[in-house]
Each structure stands twice: as C-alpha cells, then as structure tokens.
C-alpha cells in the first residue's frame, strides 16, 4: 500500500463523504466509535470493578448497561452495511433497466436507419447519405456507451460474464485481428503480430481477456492518424505472460497520463482529433487485468505513439 492509499484508508471522514453517507450511517465512523467505546468500557469496567468490589450487583448492572450500548451500536453498524449493500444492488438494477430502456429505442432507430440507407425505400442522394452516415455514427457511439456502461456495472458488482478455460494467446489475438480486418483495411493500418512458437497455453478468463485486448486494439486503431502501424507482441516472462501493443498514433499528452485509467477520462487529444470513445475502455481493461491478478501499464509520447502492456500469471491446467 502506498502512502497516499494509506492516508485515504485512515481518513474516515473522507471515506464517508465519498460514500455520500452521514456520519451516523457510515460504517467506518461507526466502527471507530464502537472501538473507542469497547476500549473505554474495558477501562470503565476495570475501574468500577475495582472501586465497588464489594457490590457485585452494581458491577453487573453497569456491565449490562455497557453491553446494551454496544449492542445498539452494533445494530446501527449492521443497518448501515445493509443500506450500502442495498444501494449497490439498486445501482446495478438501475443501470440494467436504464440500459435496456435505452437500447430499445436505439435498436428501432438503428434498424430504421439501416432500412432507409439500404435503398429499399427508394434512391437516396449523396448529400443525404452524408447525413445518414452522421446519424449512424452517433447511434453506434451511443450503443458503445451503453455496452461499456453495462460492462462497468457488471464488473463493479462482480457479475461480468466469465469463461475460465485454457487460452492460446496467439489464437485469440489472431482471431481479434481478423474481426477488425475490414476496419484496418479501410483505415490503411498494418498490424504485425509476433509471439514465440513454444508459448504455452494458460488457464484464464477467455471472455474477459478478449475484452481487454479488443479495447486496447480499438484504442490503437482510433488514435492512429492516416497510414499507421500497430505492433503486437506476446511472450513469456518468468511465470507471467507479457502482452504489448504499440502504435505510432497521436500519443497521450504528459499531463493527461496520470488520469488515463480513470473512469470517463478522455485525453485532450480526443477533442483535438475528434476521436470517438466512451472514456471507459481503459478503466475496463485495468479492472479486468487486476482482477485476473495481472498488472497493466503504458508508455506514451505525444505525437509519436503509445505502448500499452499487461502481464498475466501463467496458470497451467
């Protein structure tokens, strides 16, 4: 634990503020109060016991009164935990309902636009096609945002779909590159991929790992300007897998780099180059990699490119 994290942990008032709870509903604060009362009770009991050693009934009554106070505080603590659990459940339920309710009109809109642009309802002029393209791009943006929100919500409530199996990194990466082939060709991007021939398979979450690599690959594609190159490398380093994706894209400004894995953060470059994205992709990557006991990081130089990497422990079945 680093120094900053340590101070965050012991700052009870800060924690309560972050949870948006009043002090008397905040578990950390109640826990502290309970701790203090237990210590004081022990001292008080000792004092009373010592002072009224000849009156055991009075001592027993006082201990009983103290126990009752402790019981009441314990009750408040339990209630505040219940409230937190309920809030987490409601949040997940809320996001699920909202995303479903957003997806429904969005599907109507997407399919109606597809029908219009297919020419099935009559010819469309070039100028109209331009505007239909804008509509389609924005529908896709909203679709991606809803999809990422659902993933974040499921990740935070430990409900994200999981598929633990033996995974061959090279196969998984080649499959993903194939999925992106039309976009890569249209954007004039060359992807090279290298890995040692004897790379072993590993037991990991295939679904979530694919999500990480997909997000990183998508980022590299989105932040390349004009003709570009993406180099992917996988190798075994000790008892870990090492994955690296390098591009010669727009890079990340130095002052933005510390925020890059934060939820909804989008670099200044995004505005400059009008690159689409939800601001959730790297947050999702970091959450998943850390959940799979790995580490993630990057190096980037503005206007030169970025290199994102992650490691995962190698588990043999």
């Amino acid at each position, binding site marked *: 634990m680093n120094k900053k994290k340590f101070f965050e942990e012991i700052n009870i008032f800060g924690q309560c503020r972050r949870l948006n709870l009043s002090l008397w509903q905040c578990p950390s604060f109640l826990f502290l109060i309970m701790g203090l009362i237990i210590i004081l009770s022990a001292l008080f009991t000792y004092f009373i016991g010592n002072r009224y050693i000849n009156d055991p009934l009075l001592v027993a009554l006082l201990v009983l009164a103290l126990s009752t106070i402790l019981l009441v505080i314990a009750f408040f603590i339990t209630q505040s935990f219940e409230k937190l659990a309920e809030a987490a459940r409601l949040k997940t339920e809320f996001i699920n309902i909202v995303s*479903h309710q957003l997806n*429904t009109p969005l*599907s109507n809109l997407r399919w109606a636009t597809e029908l219009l642009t297919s020419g099935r309802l009559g010819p469309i002029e070039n100028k109209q096609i331009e505007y239909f393209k804008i509509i389609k791009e924005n529908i896709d943006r909203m*679709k991606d945002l809803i999809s990422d929100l659902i993933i974040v919500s499921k990740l935070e409530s430990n409900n994200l779909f999981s598929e633990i199996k033996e995974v061959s990194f090279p196969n998984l990466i080649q499959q993903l590159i194939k999925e992106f082939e039309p976009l890569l060709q249209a954007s004039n991007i060359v992807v090279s991929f290298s890995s040692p021939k004897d790379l072993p398979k590993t037991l990991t979450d295939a679904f979530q790992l694919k999500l990480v690599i997909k997000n990183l690959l998508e980022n590299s594609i989105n932040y390349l300007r004009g003709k570009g190159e993406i180099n992917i490398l996988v190798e075994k380093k000790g008892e870990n897998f090492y994955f690296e994706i390098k591009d010669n894209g727009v890079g990340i400004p130095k002052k933005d780099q510390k925020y890059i894995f934060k939820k909804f953060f989008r670099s200044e470059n995004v505005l400059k180059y009008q690159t689409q994205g939800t601001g959730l992709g790297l947050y999702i990557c970091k959450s998943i990699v850390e959940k799979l006991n790995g580490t993630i990081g990057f190096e980037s130089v503005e206007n030169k490119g970025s290199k994102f990497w992650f490691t995962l422990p190698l588990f043999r079945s």
Partner: protein
Amino acid sequence: MPKKILFIEDESALQKTFDEILRQEGYEMISALDGESGVLLAKTKKPDLILLDLILPKMNGFEVLAELKKDEETKSIPIIVLTNLEGLIDINKAIELGATTYLVKSQYSLKEVLDKIKTALE
C-alpha cells in the same frame, strides 16, 4: 403462398420496419403487440416462424414460449427470440423453453437478422 412470420413485439416502430423489409423479401408478416394476442395468433394463423420479444405486456416472452411449446399444434414452429435482454440466465431460460435462436437486438444489424430468419425458414 408466401411464408407467414408472426412478430410478437410491443414496439410499433420495430413492427413497421420489419413489416416493410419482410414484405419486400416476399414474406407475409402478422403482428402482435402483446404476449396474449401473440399466442392467440400463433394458434389460429399457424405461422411458419415466430419472432418473439421477451418484455411484453399481458404475457411475457418466456410465458409465450412455454405456452406455445406445450401445445401440440404450435410446438414445432421455430421461434427466434429478438430482445435486448442479454443476461446469461435469460438466454439459457429461453433456449431451455425451446427457442430456436436467441438474438440480442443491439448486437445485430437488420440484414443479419434477416439472414437468420431466412436460415430458420429453410
């Protein structure tokens, strides 16, 4: 005789889009805006295929599936579930109840849905 497709879906905008595209492809579309009338139309019109949403008024899609699959006259009609519910529990439940295919609306283009319909009718 054109093949009949029953579309059980409470979104009238989606009904309109599918009516247009299915008609152009040479199919006849019958529409139901809730689960109850969907079951009734399935039993009386005997469609060749049913497209079924899951969140429906009066009777939800799972109940419709169960009802149609227990009836001798409708149990062999292929049913494509077309929904925005993407939870694994919902997918497994629908497949267990007898759905032929499960499509999450947000993941498919209109053309891809049309291809799935054609395949199911082959």
